[in-house]
């Protein structure tokens, strides 16, 4: 399953940050697993989350660390120049990946993706993430990699 949230789809969190994705996504259905927030400044206590300033934002990843671990990377794709080629990135099917697009525009499958968009990939479809730049601007994303601590597959819960 692949989820693309345009920049207007986020909700405002209690601490003033923007909750761009969460699992579960609905209230009080199943135990809380994780959420990803954006803010201008770091929020809360740093020991409670994985966070980093990326571009104009501070990305904050909170997890239930008894069950989920998080890794936060800045992923940059070199300027493609005039010959734009599709880059395919392999994702293990048991990991849930989330990308916050900071700069650049690209085509992913048949969809156009732009700064402010948030992408979530989980499960076995797709495990190959293909990206084709559609402008000369360098593509920069905050990439969040989430795994279950027991080694099983982490699925997104609506």
């Amino acid at each position: 399953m692949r989820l693309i949230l345009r920049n207007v789809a986020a909700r405002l969190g209690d601490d003033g940050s923007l909750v761009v994705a969460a699992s579960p996504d609905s209230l009080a259905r199943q135990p809380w697993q994780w959420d990803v927030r954006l803010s201008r400044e770091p929020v809360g206590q740093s020991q409670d989350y994985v966070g980093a300033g990326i571009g104009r934002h501070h990305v904050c990843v909170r997890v239930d660390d008894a069950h989920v671990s998080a890794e936060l990377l800045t992923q940059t794709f070199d300027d493609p120049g005039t010959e734009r080629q599709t880059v395919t990135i392999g994702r293990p099917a048991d990991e849930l990946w989330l990308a916050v697009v900071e700069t650049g525009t690209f085509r992913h499958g048949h969809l156009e993706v732009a700064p402010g968009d948030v992408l979530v990939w989980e499960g076995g479809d797709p495990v190959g993430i293909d990206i084709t730049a559609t402008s000369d601007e360098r593509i920069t994303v905050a990439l969040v990699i989430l795994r279950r601590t027991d080694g099983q597959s982490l699925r997104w819960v609506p």
Partner: protein
Amino acid sequence: MYALNAWYVAAWSTEVTREPARRTICEIPVVLYRAVDGRAVALEDRCPHRGYPLSAGRLVGDSIECGYHGFTFDCEGVCVRVPAQEIIPRRTFVRSFPVVEQDGWVWIWTGEKDLADVSKVPDTHWMTDPAWATVTHSFHFDCRAELIHDNLLDLTHESFIHTTTVGDDYIYKHGITVVVDGDVVSADRLMPSVAAPPLYATTMQLDGLWDRFHCTEFRAPSFHVLHSGITGEGRPREEGYLIKVLNGITPIDAHNAHYFYAFSRNFGVDQQWATDELVEGLKTVLQEDADALALQEIGLQTRPPGEFDVLIAQDAGVAKARKVMARLLAAERQGTITTADLEPSSS
């Protein structure tokens, strides 16, 4: 509770005539008719005198006359005649609704008139494009409108409910891409190298393996465009046999909905036999949905408080659409529709 600041399909154009027709939309009784110049008119279907339905009356020119005591209202809902006296009491008016008629659909705006933005009426041009042929159906669904939205956003049910027409096991084996963009939620599924389902194989006259796709685009709160079709393996969708399924979902009340359905295709456009096959096949599909959702409605009405749906990743579109609907409803709760908003401007 309904999102009232929205366009809802009220009827097909052919249903609105010089005979008044009653329809209930979001629990609002509405009478539809055509003025002498042919434009569609929508008024609240309740005479302010004694609550009698205006739809049980008759048209007099552009006006409608109540069949009980003859109170008469113009196209704006202004009372222009009270037979028993010369003075018309100030409160004698009925609410009128903004109406748009486009491509064979009659839409009404049920909320604040000032917010009625014609540009927000969904695109349905395939209905009148000569390059496309269209089959339509109208159904009453014995369920809340939300269940139809869920049904359209999670098409894995086709594998189980519609086995003889559009279903196949491969549907639920393929994941979806869900895009949330403002009030529009889309759920897209590509099924590469599969056989066409029975109804498509017959009407498209094809066999072998194809790339099948369907993308439900929900324009909250009332309309879905299902971009569907079959194309050659690895080929662009635009090259294929294309289908646009247009679904107008209009709540009647908390447990019933109108379902206005149109299936436009770009193949076999002049082939009457294909149209006949689709009329019957799609009627079967809709009846299967209607039967299933009626049972689901009963299940939900008898479900104990505190129990909720168990949603899975394939429900991503469903879950996101519910959030959009909740946001629309919350926005309307913050703004209040006052009596002044409902009064005709000339009163």
